[in-house]
């Protein structure tokens, strides 16, 4: 048999042929029901016997061109650099094609220890690289594990591309576990918080849907997508001469604000005496950061960074984040750029027995929003926040709209307004300096305390990384306040959905992306978050991903400690029991030992602040060799 002939006989056609033959045997004899049952059993037995003792002249056991090879061609065409995955039999065909047919390069298989970590790694990767990586997972149990991380990516408007294995044809499933791992509509589990999904039934269908999914995921609002790779489609050989077409990949231009609305926004901003620009998920790319600087300088307007993205240089004189409340309270025009929670930005909410709220803006303040949230809002999950009273609302991508808005503002700025803007900017710069000094003073309190203050920890790290090409791949409030950020990759924002278990894998995914640029990735890591999926430490060591992890180890799920305390106080009882069920003590976890057990350089636990600097230095030496390292710092709560 030639290769092409051999390839044309697949698992599916072989099994269908034998079962069909058995059915024909039954039909020919027209037996009574009892006899029919017996005949089916006999026919089944014949098939089983044949499978146990196949005739070499009939049975085809090998194939040269499985469908999964073509799927890998599609992956390469899409430019995936990495696959983040925990292995699973429902995508065994794809897995084998990736590592053998594809040579395990572009994409490279990164072994993850939990599907939630796989997705969060892809989330962190996308934040740095600006494009999706691929996640592979089982269609049932894998996707169930992955679902929370997909939700985080959905809320964070991050392009995460997940592909799951599934065996739709019940007649070809292996008995037992494969049935438990198969599902009629796999994507329904996450359809409420993905932008698009599909279940292709042919390779041509697969190619088109794979390209479509990529385009949809990367068109603002960028969001997660899901594609089902059917098990039979993966494993069935391609027909002789079959060459499905991979469509041309042309990404969509992001939607820009309507010209009339842009002109109105510009008019309001230029005539405003106290405008404020609030940026949340504004800077999708490095260009977004530069454009926001341009807009702020054109207007001499203060910028408040809500830190879901690296929107604005921290030391720029118009960065007035520290004065957010004062400025918003006194503003006559507020421009919100991809602001997730506009209502919460302009209202004060009080979490007491009777929940109350009040506006913090002055009467008549005009609110302008540019946001892609208006282009894709679903009903079930309530991440869209409370409805806000807006005066101008553009359903558009903020970054894409900024050039037109800047130009529209410039056209309206007279020499008189320009002088007023310069004077405003000068006063803002003075206020920023004063706020910075207050911030340093606040940082000095508990400077020598043990447990170590979080401000001290942030500055001990900063002094050792500031002269390197660093990237903070985590959230940390003191670092945000005290470090100097001026590059887009230096900060990646948060999880989006606040689902715990994001931090460690997202940091590692970002570090994977940073590796090829030679950047130093720094992760200030919460202890409770790491304990969701500590296997990421092993992944970092196994794949040699340089990453400095500094544990913010307050030995608690501290947010929950405070919530329990609030309830106890409200009920006037048990105010000393808030640590029951909320802390991670007794025994204390030795994170350095845990790291070492998985091949990661480990330091600590560090309780004396004077020991922290030397421990960080040793850890950074390991990172400079291309290794991951962890320093366990026992800290104050916040």
């Amino acid at each position, binding site marked *: 048999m030639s290769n092409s002939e051999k390839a044309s006989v697949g698992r599916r056609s072989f099994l269908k042929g034998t079962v069909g033959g058995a059915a024909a045997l039954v039909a020919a004899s027209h037996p009574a029901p009892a006899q029919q049952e017996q005949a089916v059993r006999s026919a089944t037995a014949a098939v089983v016997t044949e499978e146990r003792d196949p005739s070499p002249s009939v049975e085809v056991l090998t194939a040269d061109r499985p469908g999964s090879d073509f799927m890998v061609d599609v992956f390469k065409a899409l430019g995936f650099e990495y696959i983040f995955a925990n292995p699973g039999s429902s995508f065994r065909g794809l897995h084998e094609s990736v590592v053998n047919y594809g040579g395990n390069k572009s994409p490279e298989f990164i072994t993850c220890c939990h599907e939630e970590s796989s997705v969060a790694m892809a989330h962190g990767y996308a934040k740095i690289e600006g494009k999706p990586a691929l996640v592979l997972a089982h269609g049932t149990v894998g996707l169930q594990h992955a679902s929370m991380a997909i939700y985080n990516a959905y809320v964070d408007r991050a392009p995460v591309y997940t592909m799951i294995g599934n065996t739709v044809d019940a007649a070809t499933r292996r008995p037992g576990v494969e049935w438990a791992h198969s599902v009629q509509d796999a994507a329904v589990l996450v359809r409420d918080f993905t932008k698009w999904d599909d279940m292709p039934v042919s390779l041509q269908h697969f190619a088109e849907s794979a390209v479509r999914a990529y385009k949809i995921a990367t068109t603002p609002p960028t969001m997660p997508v899901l594609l089902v790779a059917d098990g039979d489609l993966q494993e069935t050989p391609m027909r002789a001469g079959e060459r499905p077409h991979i469509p041309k990949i042309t990404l969509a231009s992001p939607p820009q604000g309507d010209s009339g609305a842009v002109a109105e926004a510009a008019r309001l901003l230029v005539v405003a005496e106290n405008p404020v620009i609030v940026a949340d998920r504004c800077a999708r790319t490095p260009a977004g950061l530069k454009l926001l600087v341009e807009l702020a300088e054109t207007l001499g307007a203060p910028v408040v960074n809500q830190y879901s993205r690296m929107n604005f240089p921290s030391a720029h004189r118009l960065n007035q984040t520290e004065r957010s409340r004062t400025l918003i309270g006194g503003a006559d025009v507020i421009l919100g750029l991809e602001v997730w929670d506009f209502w919460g930005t302009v209202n004060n909410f009080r979490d007491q027995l009777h929940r109350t709220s009040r506006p913090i803006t002055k009467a008549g303040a005009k609110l302008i929003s540019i946001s892609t949230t208006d282009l894709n809002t679903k009903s079930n999950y309530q991440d869209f926040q409370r409805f806000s009273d807006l005066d101008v609302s553009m359903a558009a991508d903020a970054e894409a709209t900024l050039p037109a808005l800047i130009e529209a503002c410039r056209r309206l700025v007279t020499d008189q307004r320009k002088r007023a803007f310069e004077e405003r900017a000068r006063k803002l710069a003075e206020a920023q300096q004063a706020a910075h000094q207050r911030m340093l003073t*606040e940082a000095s309190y508990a400077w020598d305390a043990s447990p170590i203050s979080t401000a001290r920890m942030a500055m001990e790290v*900063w002094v050792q990384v500031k002269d390197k090409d660093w990237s903070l791949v985590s959230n940390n409030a003191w670092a945000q306040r005290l470090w100097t950020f001026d590059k887009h990759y230096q900060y990646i924002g948060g999880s989006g959905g606040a689902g715990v278990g994001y931090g460690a894998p997202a940091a590692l995914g970002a570090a994977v992306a940073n590796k090829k640029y030679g950047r130093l990735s720094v992760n200030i890591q919460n202890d409770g978050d790491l304990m969701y999926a500590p296997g990421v430490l092993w992944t970092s060591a196994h794949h040699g991903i340089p990453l400095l992890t500094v544990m913010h180890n307050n030995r608690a799920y501290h947010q929950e400690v405070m919530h329990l305390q609030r309830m106890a106080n409200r009920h006037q009882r048990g105010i000393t029991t808030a640590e029951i069920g909320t802390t991670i003590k007794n025994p204390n976890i030795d994170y350095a030992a845990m790291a070492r057990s998985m091949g990661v350089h480990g330091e600590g636990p560090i309780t004396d602040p004077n020991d922290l600097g030397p421990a960080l230095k040793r850890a950074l030496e390991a990172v400079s060799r291309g290794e991951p390292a962890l320093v366990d710092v026992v800290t104050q709560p916040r």
Partner: protein
Amino acid sequence: MRMLMTALLASSLFAQAPSASAPAGNAPNGRKLFENFGCYQCHGREAQGGLGTGPRLGPKPIPFTALQRYVRQPTGQMPPYTAKVVSDQDLADIYAFLEAVKQPPPVKDIPLLNR
């Protein structure tokens, strides 16, 4: 970040004024109570304040009467500590702890804060 701003605003209100006449308190016991009653959760174990959670309380706390009034009937986000669960003497001990918190060195004398 919004919570952080609120905390900073509050911090300037809380730990600036000189301490007025306060009932006698036991500072070591006050430190224990500060931990046991969960004050540390939002304000830090040294009362230095927590980002986004609660303002700095010491050293130089606000007058005792103002602190007591706020603890019993907070007007912001802080949960109330009524007399049913925290006695006036407990508060006096906590206040003594806040008064005993040491002033940190000036920022100019902390090299890491001058880089």
